[in-house]
């Protein structure tokens, strides 16, 4: 650790306020009315920042809002054309710099699933890409994995710096801030003082210790083939999925689920075309106008969800579309466990436990 800064616990609010002068700063925070409910919120002085708690929803909405305007359309009178009006389109957008501060490594890493899809093409998504370019991730080295966490099983880990621009390492009395990228270094410089050698040593110890921890069993990254072999095994899918309620909770809390819908919300010829979160678990997702639905029941829908993350996405982009945050497992109303489903893929018929 060549370069590092120290931020005392007591200085956290001040540092966040300082960052907020140039950027929207998103932090995990709890509601006054619901202390147990931690979500990413825009920092403002007085907000109860909760670096100690895992957030319910990932930081996904920072770069990929639940609902955003792609373009606005307005009807403009023009008697020179036969219709008597034209449609004016406006896709103007302003992008503010963003800092995601205190997310967990899995949250930052989640965007590595978005990046190849939204920024590389064949078509580049300008809305995501422009925000992405102006976003800095400061992730907190994670020391409180629970029974639903499995980041190590997807090739990450509780101290994974991948996807983060800087790391927050808890030490006595505060945090050591360690830059990972140049952008991270530029961000940290003004908010922390240079860490003392013993603080750096302590931070390095934490990093080493956490880095050695394994969160989640086995490896879920090489099961693309097993998935294809299981594709047409209804008994397997029923055994795992009969209890699924087919709601969209798992996809909405997921840091890597990026499927969306596009709808026009308008009165007459004035309105907006918006992009909003959609879920592969919803029947309408693939329902065609003719009434045909290629994924008519939760079995096909959940199979596609597993396939997308652990087979199709690796085939296209060379990595699994899962960061192991465990939210889909933790928050599922009926505790469907995607780890168990994926782990059982290669097993022989009898192992449907």
């Amino acid at each position, binding site marked *: 650790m060549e370069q590092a800064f120290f931020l005392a616990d007591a200085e956290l609010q001040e540092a966040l306020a300082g960052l907020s002068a140039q950027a929207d700063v998103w932090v995990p925070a709890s509601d006054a009315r619901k202390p147990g409910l931690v979500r990413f919120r825009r920092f403002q002085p007085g907000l109860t920042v909760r670096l100690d708690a895992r957030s319910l929803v990932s930081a996904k909405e920072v770069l990929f809002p639940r609902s955003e305007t*792609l*373009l606005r*359309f307005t009807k403009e009178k023009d008697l020179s*054309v*036969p*219709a008597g*009006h*034209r*449609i*004016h*389109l*406006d*896709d*103007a957008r302003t992008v503010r710099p963003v800092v995601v501060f205190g997310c967990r490594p899995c949250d930052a890493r989640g965007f590595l699933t978005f990046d190849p*899809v*939204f920024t590389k093409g*064949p*078509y*580049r*998504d*300008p809305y995501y890409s422009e925000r992405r370019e102006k976003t800095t991730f400061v992730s907190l080295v994670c020391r409180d994995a629970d029974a639903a966490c499995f980041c190590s099983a997807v090739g990450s880990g509780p101290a994974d710096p991948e996807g983060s621009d800087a790391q927050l390492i808890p030490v006595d009395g505060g945090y050591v801030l360690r830059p990972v990228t140049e952008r991270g270094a530029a961000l940290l410089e003004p908010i922390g003082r240079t860490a003392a050698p013993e603080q750096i040593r302590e931070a390095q110890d934490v990093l080493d210790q956490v880095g050695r921890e394994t969160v989640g069993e086995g490896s879920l990254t090489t099961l693309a083939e097993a998935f*294809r072999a299981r*594709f*047409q095994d209804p008994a397997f899918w029923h055994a795992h999925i009969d209890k699924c309620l087919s709601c969209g909770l798992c996809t909405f809390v997921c840091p890597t689920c*990026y*499927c*969306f*819908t*596009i*709808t*026009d919300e*308008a*009165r*007459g*010829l*004035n*309105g907006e*075309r918006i*992009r909003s979160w*959609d879920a*592969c678990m919803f029947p309408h*997702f*693939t*329902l*065609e*106008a*003719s009434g*045909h639905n*290629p*994924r008519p029941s939760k079995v*096909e829908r959940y199979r*596609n969800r597993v*396939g*997308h993350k652990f*087979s*199709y*996405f690796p*085939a*296209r982009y060379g990595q699994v579309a899962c960061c192991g945050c465990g939210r889909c497992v933790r928050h599922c109303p009926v505790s469907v466990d995607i780890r168990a489903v994926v782990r059982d893929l290669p097993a022989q018929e009898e192992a449907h436990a």
Partner: protein
Amino acid sequence: MPKVVTNDNPYLPHMGTIREIIQETPNIKTFRIVLDDPEEMAAFRFEPGQVGQLSVFGVGESTFVINSPPTRREYLQFSVMKTGEVTRALHRLSEGDPIGVRAPLGNSFPVDELKGKDILFVGGGIGMAPLRTLLLTMADRREEFGDITVIYGARSPQDLCYRYEFDEWKAAGVNLILTVDREFPGWEERVGFVPTVLAEEAPSPFNRVAITCGPPIMIKFVLAGLKELGYEDDQILTTLERRMKCGIGLCGRCNIGDTYVCVDGPVFSNTQLRRMVSEL
């Protein structure tokens, strides 16, 4: 008002105007669309089989094949069957109305690979639309291709699209075989389902490629019929349809396994279809 029209936004439609609407069948209309910007229209290039997203602002977008051939560029033609929300809205539009177009999207028929070959088109109902763009491309470059046989069927004579240009097709040296599901007064062409007519005609697979599009049940029996006639998987091309939103490989719904119909298709060979997971 901020100035827009950034060319790098794949979600931003090009504005066009409906020049002409043709009522093809009781529930299918053909739209001939010209982009409003003459330079854009002049520069517009596409390959046969590629699709476009038509926007009815306030209702939404839907995907249709550009069924005019790239060899004829005074307008872009789309045929629309009234089925859902957007297609109903499209059917309510009039000539002269503004319309949004995002095109071209998707892959196309491998025209160069088809050169020098005999061609068999097998179409049913609205499924003739994607075949038409290729058929007319070939008609306009007739000498580059061998025999062109078209088997085109619909439920009834009035459900056949493009009736007004059948003579033009024949004049271009296309062997056009028309069929309807049952007898109708005044109908003098074939009677019977498309796969049946295919079996009766039995076009030789030798140096031939079959291109088929139609309702799923027809496709199923046509594929079986072609196999019966000795066609290999890579001699058969078809186009797939899925519910689409973005059309550019992002929104996640039109996949069949790891294949995205919107960017990897809509044109697939039977060899490719067989490699996909079975989720049609």
